[in-house]
Structures are given as C-alpha cells and as structure tokens.
C-alpha cells in the first residue's frame, strides 16, 4: 500500500496549493446550480396543492438545514482525524468549518420561522426539527467559544476536537429525545415535508439546491482553509515563495 498520498494530505504547502486550484472548480458549478435551481424553484415548479406558493421557502430552508448538519459532521470528522493522526491540516479544516456552520444554522432557523408563520400561524412552534436545529446552533456557539477561550493553538485544536466528537455522538440522541418529547406534547400541527412522492419539477430544483449549497460550502471551506493555513504556518519559508 502506498501511503504517500496520505502524508501529502498532511503537508500544508501541498494543501495550500491544491485548495487554491480546486476552489473555482467548486465555486462556479455551485453558482450555476444555485441560479438554475432558483429559476426552477421560483418559476418552473408548480405551486403546492396544500401550501400554495408558500412552499417555495423550502428551496432555501432545506439546503441551509442540510448544510448546518453536514458541516457539523465534516467538522467532527476532521477533528477526529486531527486528534487521532495528529494532523495539523485536519485541525485547520475543523476550525474553518465552525463559522460557516453557525451561519447556516441561523439561516435555517430564520427561514424556518418565516415558513412557520403562514403555515402554523406563528413564528415559533416547538417543532422537533426547529428545536433540534436551535440546540445545534448552541453547540456551534459552544465550539467556537471553547476555541476562542484557549490561547494556545494546539490545545485549542485538541480540546475543541474532543468537544466536536462528544457533540457528534450526542446529536442523534438529542434529535431522538426532541422528537420523542414532541410526540408526547403534540405540537399544534406538524409541517409535512416528507411526503411520499414529490413531483419531479418540484424535486429537481431541491436536489440542485442541495448539491449547489454543498459545492458552495466546499469552495468556502477551501478559501477559509488557505487563510487558516497561512495563519498557522506563520514562520514557514514556503509561504514566502507562495506569496511571490
């Protein structure tokens, strides 16, 4: 087995260069997909038979909610890799994730509330999804708070990595408990998003949005990662050559 690729993954100058070349390859398809999905979602898709035009909030709510959860997963995986193999670049990835994740968790909360008003008649219902998302937001805040609270970078990296892993073990339990709690206390009405069959002209823009947002996150992550690497490798001589 040839492991050089793995060792190169841990080499900051290598990653810095690769991230630079890859960024446009994620950014442009992401932009195109999102614009196309906007047209498909706002114009081409037919109004929903229950929610009318209001269901179109789905096309920004669902991708943000997906990013919020996915980014936490990426962050925890990177943190675990950094903790287990002592890979500095992995910690830089985890550090770059948190801010973006918190942003999109907030967006999913705000869009969920804006969707809730016409559907439930109130901006906030203790719906299990919204509640779990709110707890996720607090988890992100805690992660960033811990990182900011420890001065030594190596220690901040590892302590926050432990927290991210503890969080990722807990998130399914939290989601389950919140759903269980909700099933007992019966919220007034539950938003039905998981209908068995969504017509293709409704589903296609959603899938395009999900893919577009994922690629968008990848592009943002790469740019943030480059910044993070520069900041961490402050004394390295390779930076001098890169910045020519």
């Amino acid at each position, binding site marked *: 087995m040839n492991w050089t690729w793995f060792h190169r993954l841990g080499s900051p100058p290598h990653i810095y260069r690769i991230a630079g070349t890859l960024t446009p390859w994620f950014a442009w398809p992401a932009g195109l997909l999102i614009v196309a999905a906007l047209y498909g979602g706002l114009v081409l898709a037919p109004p929903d038979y229950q929610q009318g035009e209001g269901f179109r909030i789905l096309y920004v709510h669902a991708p943000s909610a997906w990013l919020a959860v996915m980014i936490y997963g990426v962050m925890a995986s990177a943190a675990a890799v950094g903790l287990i193999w002592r890979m500095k670049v992995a910690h830089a990835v985890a550090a770059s994730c948190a801010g973006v994740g918190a942003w999109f968790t907030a967006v999913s909360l705000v869009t969920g509330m804006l969707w809730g008003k016409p559907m439930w008649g109130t901006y906030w219902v203790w719906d299990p999804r919204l509640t779990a998302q709110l707890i996720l937001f*607090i988890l992100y*805040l805690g992660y960033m*708070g811990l990182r900011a609270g420890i001065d*030594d970078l190596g220690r901040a990296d590892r302590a926050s990595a*432990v927290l991210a892993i503890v969080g990722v*073990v807990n998130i399914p339990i939290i989601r389950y*408990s*919140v759903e269980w709690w909700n099933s*007992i206390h019966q919220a007034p009405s539950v938003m039905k998003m998981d209908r068995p069959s969504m017509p293709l002209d409704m589903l296609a823009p959603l899938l395009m949005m999900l893919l577009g947002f994922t690629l968008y996150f990848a592009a943002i992550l790469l740019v943030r990662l480059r910044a993070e690497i520069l900041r961490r490798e402050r004394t390295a001589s390779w930076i001098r050559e890169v910045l020519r």
Partner: protein
Amino acid sequence: MTVRRTTAFSAAGLVLTRDLRLAVRRPSQLIQPLAFFAVVALLFPLGYTPELGKLRAIAPGVLWVGALLASMLALESLFREDASDGTLEQFVVCGQPLVALMAAKTLAHWLLTGLPLTLMAPVLGIALGVPVEAMPGILFSLLLGTVTLSLIGAVGAGLTLGVRRGGVLLSLLTLPLAVPVLVFGARATELAISGESLMGPLYLLGALAVLGITLAPLAAAAAVRIGLE
C-alpha cells in the same frame, strides 16, 4: 514486608475517598448547590402563582431545570483546585489509568451533588404541590439522571480547564448535551405525578447513564490530558 501494589481500582478508591474527605472538611461547597436548588424551586411560587394545582403542572420542569443548574454550579470547582495545585498533573504522571481516576472524581461529584440534590427533590416537590405517591418515581428518575449530568459535566469541566473564567462557557458547552436527560427526566417526573407507569422514560434514562458511564470518563481523561499540556 510485602510491597503493596496499587491497582487502578484501589487508586480510584483513594481518589474517591480523598475527594469525599475534602468535601466533608469544607461543607460550604457541599451545601451551596443544595441551597441554590432550593432557592430556584422556591422562586417559582413567588414569581408564578402560589396555587398548588398550577405549580404541580410545572413541577417536573422546575425540579429538573433546578437540579441541572445546581449540578452545573458545582462543576466549576470539580477540577479547578486540583489543576492549580498540581494534583491533576500528578494524576496524569502517576502511572495509573487516568480514565479510572476521572471516573472516581465523577463519582465523587455525583455523591456530593447529584445524590443530595436527588434526596432534596421530594421536599421541594411537596412545596410545589407534588403528591407524596409520586416521590419514589421522582427519586428514581433523578437518581439515574443526575449520574449522566455529572458525567457530561466532568467532560465539560475537563475541556474548560485551560479557559480563564470558564464558568459561562462551561454551561454553554454542557447544557445542550444535557437536553436528552432533561427531556426524559422531566417526562418521568410528569408521569410519576399523574400516577402512571414511568418505566419508559426510566429505561431511556438508564440507557443514557450506561452510555455516559462507558464513554464520558474516556472523554474527560482526554480533555484533562489536553488541558494540562
């Protein structure tokens, strides 16, 4: 003369008795969480309504949120003094598995806060209009739930070791992780008050405690090791 070999088990026992002895010599730390719990629970009749019927409806939430916050209050001091006087460093280098020592410290925390809080809950329950028949259920659910709270708290306290004035951060880290305990515990209490079977949420609380006992000391040991680097 025989040389006594210290096993991980006896080392953990030593840590446990040491923590308990320290707490007995300084009883104020023992009493503060209890007093806090009592104050929180007694503020509700004053802030909401003295009607026992209405208080009974919110009693599960009051008892569990109060126990959660009181147990958190005692967490800050779990590692602080041991870190500042070098005891924790001795734990790390003494050659005994740190996981066992962390488990012992967590157990000490539970014996000194979780258990007294549990025993005090029925008294506060009476003040909130909880019928006497519900007390065994409340005791049981709190007994199981506070174990998990102590375990989660030990991880949080370990993580915030390197943080100056980490009190607020500690709550921010541990409160979201404690949500499942709160949900199942409050539900068990609610069922106990209405006189129904509370085995369902009790099993779930038990599952959480088992999961916490197996994983939390590992995470706490890792956190303490990182915090002392």
